[in-house]
């Protein structure tokens, strides 16, 4: 450890970096790379959001109006892939790049050059995904889960998707190795593991999950590729394979993946809540253990996505019990946040609003998660709009709201300027309203029997689909306000003090000026 530490400081910090575009292409600075990750993910968020609006526009009324069924399926597929792999995951890596070194008192990430490479891999991957709309046969249309044999039937678009997933996986693995190494080896003297900020803890655990499951995804898409082009039959019964095996392998990646997208949000919220409650996080060690338990449990619950695929009774019961168990550590987290707020001295700036909004809506998503875990009920709601509502409650009002909380919380440190509080709060309340308008009604659509991934529906679903579409357009437009707030902050926000949040206690606020200098912590701080 000492050797690595010394080595990190052996690098020369040359301030004469290239300017213009070359600065961004060649940069090895964690702040530059973090910024690029964040802008990239926001661009992908708008792209995936546009696809979502296409879907909602088609579903505004019964009948086929805008998107023919084949194109509709391409929209749903690419919406899922782009949001998961292009928007949410890179956004969290962006936060890790900016915040992990600042919060542990390190000068940069452990592997600075690999860091550059992990970012720039995202560009060809995103290009492959987006351009697949324009190849013969169009983009992949088998859902973001691309189950064979349907995905074996697809055209060139599926191959582009497979390569995109490969590249994104490589990028994620490199990013995770970098984060793990940085956290384990480059903490400031005195910062023991159990003194790390919660955001760092959640990312450490997330990075381990990523290293564990991304190769599994790479394996399964490779098998799909060879099934498509090289005559293998992994997923083809006629050749001795099994289509359901794909689902098992995919979800062995896919379920930890959903925790990869939520654990860092827990970390962000665990920073924001204590800051604005002016009170230390309640039950720090139980929060760490809860995060680790969730990560471990997430690896043994994958088949709850497949309760209708056919499974022995004991299999269904095991996966039902294991899934329900996840509610316990998740509940512990919610109780700890509540106890942190209890008898605090709270103020409600935008980051705090988003953090509370996160808890409120994430708990609703958690409840519908428990309901989906109950096998008999899942038999009814699986592959319906109920599930769509469930995972948007945990991914949009979960991950995305936490990302917003984090962006508002740390933007003063990143840019040296304050955002407009009134506009920030407006962004929150509009997001809150339109989010619920879009997704709450989808629970009822699912219960009443509307399957997901259909371009047209029976008249009984018409009114709530219309409400949902109106909400979606409102939510989409609201996010342009976020873009405006951020640009306005970067360009002409008021100058921020070193510590705009008086309750903040982590190193980036207590030990660094605002904005954080290009090279920070060249000498490590000492943590008491």
């Amino acid at each position, binding site marked *: 450890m000492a050797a690595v530490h010394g080595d990190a400081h052996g690098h020369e910090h040359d301030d004469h970096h290239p300017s213009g575009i070359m600065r961004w292409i060649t940069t090895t600075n964690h702040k530059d790379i973090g910024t690029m990750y964040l802008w990239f993910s926001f661009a992908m968020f708008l792209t995936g959001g546009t696809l979502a609006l296409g879907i909602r526009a088609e579903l505004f009324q*019964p*009948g*086929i109006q805008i998107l023919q*069924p084949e194109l509709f*399926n391409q929209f749903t597929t690419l919406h899922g892939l782009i949001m998961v792999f292009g928007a949410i995951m890179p956004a969290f890596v962006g936060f890790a790049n900016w915040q992990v070194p600042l919060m542990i008192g390190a000068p940069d990430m452990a592997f600075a050059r690999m860091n550059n490479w992990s970012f720039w891999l995202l560009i060809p991957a995103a290009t492959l995904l987006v351009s697949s709309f324009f190849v013969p046969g169009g983009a992949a249309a088998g859902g973001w889960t691309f189950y064979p044999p*349907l995905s074996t*039937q697809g055209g060139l678009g599926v191959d582009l998707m497979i390569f995109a997933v490969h590249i994104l996986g490589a990028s994620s693995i490199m990013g995770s190795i970098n984060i793990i190494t940085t956290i384990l080896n480059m903490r400031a003297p005195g910062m023991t593991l159990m003194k790390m900020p919660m955001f760092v803890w959640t990312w450490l655990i997330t990075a381990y999950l990523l290293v564990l499951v991304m190769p599994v995804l790479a394996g399964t898409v490779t098998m799909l590729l060879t099934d498509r082009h090289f005559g293998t039959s992994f997923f*083809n*019964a006629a050749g001795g394979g099994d*289509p359901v095996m794909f689902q098992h392998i995919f979800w062995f990646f896919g379920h930890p993946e959903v925790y990869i997208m939520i654990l860092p949000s827990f970390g962000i919220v665990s920073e924001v809540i204590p800051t604005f*409650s*002016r*009170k230390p996080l*309640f*039950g*720090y*060690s139980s929060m760490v253990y809860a995060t680790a338990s969730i990560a471990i449990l997430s690896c043994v619950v994958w088949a709850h996505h497949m309760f*209708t695929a*056919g499974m022995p*009774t004991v299999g269904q*019961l095991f996966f039902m019990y294991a899934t*329900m*168990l996840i509610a*316990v550590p998740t*509940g512990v987290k*919610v*109780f700890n946040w*509540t106890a942190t707020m*209890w*008898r*605090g*001295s*709270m103020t409600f700036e935008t980051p705090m609003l988003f953090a*509370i909004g996160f808890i*409120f809506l994430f*708990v*609703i998503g958690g*409840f519908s998660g*428990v*309901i989906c875990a*109950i*096998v*008999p*009920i899942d*038999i*009814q709601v*699986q*592959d319906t709009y109920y599930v769509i509502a469930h995972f948007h409650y945990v991914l949009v009002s979960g991950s995305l709201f936490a990302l917003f909380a984090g962006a508002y919380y740390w933007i003063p440190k990143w840019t040296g300027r304050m955002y407009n509080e009134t506009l920030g709060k407006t962004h929150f309340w509009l997001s809150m309203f339109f989010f619920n308008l879009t997704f709450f009604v989808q629970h*009822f659509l699912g*219960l*009443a*029997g509307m*399957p997901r991934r*259909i*371009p*047209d529906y*029976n*008249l*009984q679903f018409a009114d*709530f689909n219309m409400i949902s579409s109106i909400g979606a357009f409102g939510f989409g437009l609201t996010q342009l306000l976020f873009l405006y707030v951020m640009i306005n902050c970067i360009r002409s926000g008021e100058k921020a003090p070193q510590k705009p949040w008086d309750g903040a206690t982590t190193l980036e606020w207590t030990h660094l000026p605002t904005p954080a200098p290009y090279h920070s912590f060249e000498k490590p701080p000492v943590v008491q």
Partner: protein
Amino acid sequence: MRSKSAVTLAGVSALALYSSMAVGSKYNLPEPQSVIAKDIYDQHILLLWICLVIFIGVFGVMFYSVLKHRKSLGYKAANFHHSTAVEIIWTVIPCLILVVMAYPATKTVIAMKDTSSPDMTIKATGYQWMWGYDYLQGEGEGISFYSKLSTPRAQVENKAPKGENYLLEVDNRVVVPVGKKVRVILTANDVIHAWWVPALGIKQDAVPGFIRDTWFTADKPGIYRGQCAELCGKDHGFMPIVVEAMEAGEYSKWVAAQSASAVKTSMHVEK
């Protein structure tokens, strides 16, 4: 304080009213028509109530705190940050609640999976994009037909007004007798489909090259509609499932009529 409890009471009763409306409305699970569907319906309602109670408990505390413990009211922050006893309590209680939820669910899972000794067996085969049915065993053995969407294309393209059963109507319904245990064997010809009839509490994927099975017993005569529930390509949204449950006598007549027309059809094919 009294006005506050009155407000709380009003809020709770509004929520109760709201959820009881959902029970009777078209936005809940459809009215159950089989033992399993009834179990599912009841468990869903039970879970909703449990979730509602927890929700009110947790957010009652949180929003009390949000209202009272604010800096703008001059509230000074306390400094407690740890309690092992409290952590143990709020780990154990959720575990107990989960046991309450898991017990009835386990019984239903075991019942759902018991496809033994059926009165009749029907094989359903998923095609892109329609269903094929073969009556394999029991009264009606040998009957075989395809079942396709019967909604005219013009309705989908908004050139004709949409009917009540828009996208949920087929040319040939699956007909079954009331009160008989029907085992459904599923497979598919091309990609994965899923056979779903919400009112009967039955959904099972149909996997090409493999056989899956499930069962239902319709309690009452009626027409029960469902849809393919696994993305299967372009016309995934256009391959509904319609089950018609009949009294035993009616069903026998239907079988007789089918057998007669089946002879005709096969002669027609051979010609």
